[in-house]
């Protein structure tokens, strides 16, 4: 097994732990702001793992996907925070 193969397994394990923790917090989170924040973290982990896959396999096919996600990932969290009323607790 090559060095980058070992790195791929380790990185996949750590990305997976982070993503599972984020999903758990989306389900359990006490307020809607916590859920928006955890969704943001899940999206950032997705962007990072796309980039890691590209660097390990030496191609640039999904670089455009990273660009679009980095541009528009902000819309969801900001609209939730902007239009949240005081009584929206969950």
């Amino acid at each position, binding site marked *: 097994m090559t060095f980058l193969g070992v*790195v791929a397994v380790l990185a996949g394990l750590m990305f997976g732990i982070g993503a599972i923790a984020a999903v758990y917090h989306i389900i359990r989170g006490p307020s809607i702001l916590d859920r928006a924040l955890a969704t943001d973290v899940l999206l950032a982990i997705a962007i*990072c793992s796309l980039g890691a896959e590209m660097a390990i396999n030496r191609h640039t096919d999904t670089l455009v996907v990273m660009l679009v996600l980095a541009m528009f990932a902000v819309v969801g969290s900001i609209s939730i925070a902007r239009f949240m009323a005081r009584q929206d607790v969950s």
Partner: protein
Amino acid sequence: MSAAEIATGLLILVSAFLSMAAGIGIVRFPDVLTRLHAATKPQVLGLASVLVAIVVQVPTWGVLTTVVLVMTFQLLTQPMTAHMLGRAAYRSDHVRRDLLIEDDLDHDIAEHDQTGR
């Protein structure tokens, strides 16, 4: 196994560790503001290291310019998200005030109320 491969592997491991730390941090920390601290910083540094790894593996000008664009958009939009979430959390009482050492915004709001509006 060349030097470029070792550098790529280390950068990817840094990014993966920061993603895991962000995930564990948002589960462990008690309120929205501390979770913001755990969530936003690893996103920027982890993304930066993975983008450097891509440039090391595929060093062309097209890849470099696209990578700079991705990093620029992330650096522009991530503080906006953190600011809006923190503001909404403060305004809707999702902040654990017993954990705060100093609440400067509360002082400013009280002072503004006293000096007239």
